[in-house]
Structures are given as structure tokens and as C-alpha cells.
């Protein structure tokens, strides 16, 4: 064994950090990249399939309806506001505010999942009729899984805050939860444009 020469002391370093200083932020980023990339591949496949058709959507298939999806886009954008406030409060370690606004955020995100059910049907064709239907359903379906994941995460977090005092570092996790929500919303806007609005244009 070599002899160890103390050349520095870490005792004074912080134990809870925010943003890119915290591990969880990096982990979240990693999974954002993976999921975003998967979605990108699905979208590429969607356009690959599109080459096999003269018309898009295929003959005798109606355009996807826009009403519900548009409403949901609005709801999601709105829900970003409480998310933003929560993450700021968390950075201030302002526990009461975090709790308050987490409740608001939870109330804001739940409807998106409910609307998602009709959004699937707003594609206006079944997944097992044409490859077009399959592509659209797969894309929206995959985003649904991300959506549900994050909603569950938000609800759980809220619950925990009310059940018992949370460790300080969970304020940092709360910030990351908001970041993940921004990602989910941004991804959905892209999908909304491609899957619902797209067929009317291309």
C-alpha cells in the first residue's frame, strides 16, 4: 500500500446542488436524449412509410381531427407555468411555495392524460387498418408513455411532500421534474405538428 498524503479537504463542499452540478440533472438529461432520439427515429420511419403512398393520409382515410389535440397543446403549455414556479421555489428552498404550486401543477397535468385518450382516436383511423395508422398510433402511443410517466412522477412527488419532510436534495429533484415536463411538452408540440397538422400540409 502506498502512503496517502492529504492534499485537500472536501469537508466544506456543499452536499446539495442544483442544475448541472447535481447527478440527477445529468441522469434526467440522459433519458431525455434517449427518449427524444427514439421519437426522432419513429418520426423518420413515419416519413419513410409516407413514401409508399400517393396521398397522405391514404385514400378513404380522413384527416386527423384537430380540436382535442389543439386543446391539449394549450393545456400543456399552461401547465408549464406552475412547473416553472415550482422549480423557482425549489431553488429558493421555499418549501411552502413548492408544496402549494406542486398541487397546482398536479391539477394542471392530470387533464393532459385524460385528453390523450380522445387524442388517440382523433387520429381518425385504427392502427390495424394501414401502415399510416400504425405509424401515427405508435408515435402518439410512445409519447403517451412518457406523458404518463411524468404525470405519475409529479403526483408522487407532491404526495411525498405532504406525507413527511423531504430531504433537502429532493428540492433539486423537483427542479429536474419540471425540466422533464418542459421536454415532454416540447416533444408533444413537435408531434402535434407532424401527426395532426402535418397530413393537411404534406
Amino acid at each position, binding site marked *: *500500500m502506498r502512503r496517502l498524503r*492529504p492534499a*485537500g479537504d472536501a469537508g466544506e*463542499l456543499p*452536499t446539495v446542488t442544483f442544475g448541472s452540478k447535481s447527478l440527477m440533472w445529468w441522469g434526467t438529461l440522459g433519458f431525455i436524449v434517449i427518449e427524444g*432520439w427514439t421519437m426522432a427515429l419513429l418520426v423518420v420511419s413515419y416519413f419513410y412509410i409516407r413514401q409508399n403512398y400517393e396521398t397522405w393520409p391514404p385514400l378513404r382515410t380522413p384527416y386527423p381531427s384537430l380540436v382535442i389535440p389543439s386543446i391539449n397543446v394549450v393545456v400543456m403549455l399552461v401547465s408549464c407555468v406552475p412547473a416553472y414556479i415550482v422549480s423557482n421555489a425549489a431553488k429558493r428552498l421555499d418549501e411552502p411555495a413548492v408544496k402549494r404550486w406542486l398541487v397546482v401543477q398536479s391539477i394542471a397535468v392530470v387533464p393532459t392524460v385524460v385528453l390523450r385518450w380522445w387524442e388517440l382516436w382523433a387520429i381518425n383511423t385504427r392502427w390495424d387498418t*394501414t401502415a399510416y395508422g400504425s405509424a401515427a398510433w*405508435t408515435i402518439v402511443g410512445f409519447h403517451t408513455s412518457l406523458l404518463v410517466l411524468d404525470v405519475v412522477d409529479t403526483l408522487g412527488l407532491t404526495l411525498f411532500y405532504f406525507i413527511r419532510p423531504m430531504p433537502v436534495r429532493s428540492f433539486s429533484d423537483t427542479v429536474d421534474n419540471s425540466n422533464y415536463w418542459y421536454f415532454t411538452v416540447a416533444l408533444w408540440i413537435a408531434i402535434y405538428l407532424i401527426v395532426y397538422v402535418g397530413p393537411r400540409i404534406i
Partner: protein
Amino acid sequence: MTPRDENRTLPADVTLADEELEREASRLDAVWQTKRGLWGWLTTVDHKEIGRRYLVTTFLMFIAGGIEAAFMRTQLMRPGNTLLGPDKYNQLFTTHGTTMMFLFAVPIMTAMGIYFVPLMVGARSIAFPRLNAFGYWTYVVAVVFLYVSLFANTAPDVGWFAYVPLSGPQYSPGHRVDVWAQVVTFTEIAALVAAVNIIVTVFKMRAPGMSLNRVPLFVWAQLVVSFMIVFAMPSVATGSTLMLATDRAINMHWFNPAEGGDALLWQHIFWFFGHPEVYIIFLPALGFITPIVETFSRRKVFGYTALVMSNITTAFFSFGLWVHHMFATPIPELGQSLFTAASMLIAIPTGIQIFCWLATIWSGRPELRTPMLFVLGFFFTFVNGGITGVMLASVAFDKQAHDTFFVVAHLHYVLIGGGVMPLFGAFYFWFPKITGRMLSETMGKVNFWLFVIGVNVAFFPMHVLGLNGMPRRVYTYLPETGWGPLNLVATLGAYAIAVSVVVFIANVIRSLRRAPDAGPNPWDSSGLEWAVSSPPPPYNFVHTPIATSRHPLWDTAIDLPVITGLRSDRREVLLTTAFDARPESRHYHPADSIWPVYLAGCMAVVFIGSIFSPYFVLGGLGLSLIGLAGWGWTGAQDRERERVQVHQSIVDTA
């Protein structure tokens, strides 16, 4: 605060007294030690424990795949052999390919990373230990699922590439292909979490002073490969889980030409993953080579920067070659030529690496210990595979060689030469670190010679067979084709490989029965992992070392500068800045937990169940909610003692 400032405040000649270290060590032991018994075994999050299991399981898979290969070679030993019928043969060659690619090659490389990256970067643990355990258990699910299926006559029988429409609902009835699709899904999950884990560990947990230009090449390779995994694996996951499985289970039309689906889409999706896959196996192996070459040439590697750059460029190029697996399909000529160019281009960085190692050996003091021998075996075998690879990049020639035994020869030369040989070298090199025991040199040399001879005898004739028109994936062939003799030779070579692997296993067993004899640094090597006892304690380092150069143990002759002050009354790791590794914060490290294995179980219910009924999916997700809650459930451990840093201001929450 940087090490340098501290050096000023602390007198340089003070070293920590042994008894003080022992006291600290025992305190850390109490905190980091995994519990004994089954519960401890299920709940451990120690990256070395997980890594060791990973290594053992993946090696078992190597043996399983080898046994399948032995069966296949025996079947092909002579024309019209009747040992295996087409049905069994197809299941075996598919299981062989799936096992070797998904259950052996990729996971064993990540396993090496999981075990050694934290040690090499001087960290006490890995970034996300529970995620790490979860990844391992998911992988175990894949292993059990595939092999249970094999014995239940439900093994996939459409090749590890599972081309549609053959693998589609109409031409692959039953659940054999579903098994393949889900096994792939599990391995993708495992690979992805491991990749994220390694990336974050390398970026945030390096020892102070280990700026990116001091990172060991082993770690560089692991980092680069982890990024490749992040971008390659989602592709096959998309194909198998979101397209093939849904086509088969709920009548989607991704691949049904009559409804606008497309059979070629699968090939693009699959090979966009499938080609980087080869480099995902190959680059970590190159990472093993550098420290071995350095240690047994007794000099620092020649061209560190060049080696790092080649790693990165290889990773980039490897995503631009997938179409060279599809030259026989209707793809525009121009596109093909572009992919030819790319496929040839990638030979350059690989060449650079080989030249650099040769230069290192040339200008060093070579010692032919077993690990070094395997590296030489790598040169001998892999260069051959690389050259045939360049040949196959040519569209014209590929139209003859594609899907023949020429390709079988090429890919085994690349994967065994470029992957397995360095791996064996790595086994011999790091086995002492993992177990505290040396492996026998004599048996190692027997192992090496049998292996290198076996590989070349088994696979070289296949080049000729391919050129003589023998296609791949045939369960038999007619006598008049004249392929008999060379196939016989190849089979004998395969047996030689089997014997050499048996020798290796015997060697391992032999040394495990002996008393520990290795000591911390048996090879007098230079990496930080050799600074700790063998096997390393659960907390890796009593005090986080400071990396003063690329070869800390060679450059700091006696004293190893360390950072003190990490708490020893709870699990705590040191985080440093991403690029120049300046100490940044102390991070709470989670305790052992049952939820990783529980959640892996839920994943099993979800994905295996999805084959049979959607209710399993819902049920499994429901169950996993409990797991997620348990995972996220954390009390307010000593809140008042936390030091919080928001932006730049440090707040005490006392």
C-alpha cells in the same frame, strides 16, 4: 477550492498514519458493507458486486453460445448430416447469434465498465447504483427468458437479425419471434441504463485533477461506447418493441407491403443499430489493450491523443455505414458508393490505433505475459478481419460475398479477434484485482495457443467456403457442392476453441481455490484501480485520490496525494466538474434497496406478458407503481447538516 491551493495550506510531507487509516476504513466498512445472506444479495448496489455478477453471467452466456456453436459445427461437419433438423438448427443459430451479440458481447463490455470505471476514475461508487442494479436484473430476465424458451422449443428461429416478413406474424407463427423481440427489449434497457450510468460517472465523479486529457484510455473507450449505445440501442428497441412486436401482437402494418408497410424499413432500422453494435463491442476491447500494452512494454502509451481521437472518430463513422449490410437490396447506386467510402474510411482510425500500439511495443521493453500474448493474438487475428472488412465494403465484391460463409469468417475474425481476445487478455490482467488471486501463467499460455490456433483453423477455411458459394444459415449442404472437407476442418478448429475455453475455466477454478497472492498491484501497472487492495473494499478508496498525471501510480513514486473530508458516517461520494475535474460537491449515495430487483420483475411481467395479453401490461405497470414509490421514498436524513449550494451562494440549512 482546488488541490493546488490545498497543497499550499498543508505541508507536503505529512502522510496519514496507518492506524488512522484503519479506523477510517472500519467506519466506512460499517456504512458501505453489503448485508450478508440472500437479502443482502438481492439488495446490494455495490458496483463491484453487480459488475462481478455481470461478468459471471455474461461469461456463462459465452459458454452457452459456444455450446450452440459446437452443435452447429458438428451438424455441418459433413454434407447431409442428420444430427439436427432444420427446425432445431434454425433455433440454435438464432440463439447463438442473439446470445453472443445481446447477452454476451455487449453486456460483458459494459460489465467491465461497471466494475472498473469508478475504480479507474478514483470514485467511491458509480453514479446511479440502484439503476445499475436494476439494469443487471433486467439483463438476468432476458437471459432466463431466452434459455427457458430454448428448452421449451420456443427459441426464435429467424436469425439474430429477424428480417421481416419472415419474422412477421404470417411466416413465424407462435411466440418464437416474440421471445426474440422481448429479449432484445430487455437487453436494450440494461445497456441504456449502464451507458447513462457510465457517462455520468465519468463526467461528474472523476478524481480531482483527472482532467479529460488525463482520463485513462480504458475509460475513454467506455465513455465513447456509452454515447454510441445511447444513440444506437434506441433504434433496435424501436424496431423490435414498437414495430415488430406490435405488428405481431396487435396487427399493426409497419412491415406489411400490401398496406403501405415496408420490409426494407426493418433492415434500415436494424442495421442502423446493428453496425454501431460491432464497434460497441470492439471499442471497449481496444480500451483493454492500452493498459496491457503499457504495462508489459514498461512505457507510457505512444500517441495518447491520437488514440482518443480515433476512438471518437470511429464512433462517429460507425453510424454512417449501415447500408453496407444491404448492398443486395434495391438501393440507389450512388448511395451505395457513399457508404462504401464511409466503410473504408473507418479503417483509418482503427489503423492509427494499431500503429500506435505497435510503436509503443517497439520502443518499449516487451514482456510476453499471458495478457500481452492475447494482445498479440489480437493483432494477428483482427488485422485479418479488418482487411476482409475493407474488401466487403466494396459493393461489387460484396454482391458475391454477402450472406456467404466469407462474411461468417469476417465477422468472427473481427469479433473474436477484436473483442474476445482482448477480453481474455483483460481477464488475465484484472482477475487479480477482482479476486486477489493470480491466474496460472502456464495454463494461460496453453489457453492462448489453443485459442489462437483454434480460431484461425475454424474460421479461415470459411473465407474459401464463402467464395466457393456456400451461403450462410444453411442447416446442411449437398455432397456435390464439394464443401465437405473445409467444413470438417472448420469443425475441428471449433473443438480446439472449446478445449481452450475449458482450460481457462480450469485455470480460474484452480486459482480460486488458492490463498490470495496478488497484492494491490501485481503487474506494477499505472492506473488508480491498482492503488487499492485486491479485491477492493466496498467503498473503493478510504480517501479520494488526486490524479496528478495520466499514470498516477507511475508518476507518484511513493506518496499518493488524497482529498480528505468525505463523511464516513454515511455513504457519500465526491463530485467534480465535468471537464477539469475540480472538486465541486459531496453527493449522498443511496443505501441498498430491494426495489431494483422488484422493478426488474415488473418489467418482466410487462414485456413477457405483452406477448400473451394486454392485461399483463396493465398489471405489471400497476405493480411497478409500488416499486417507483418505494424507490423515490426517502426520509429527511439529517436535514440540518446539509450544505446547500444554489448557483454560487452556499446556504446552511441548519
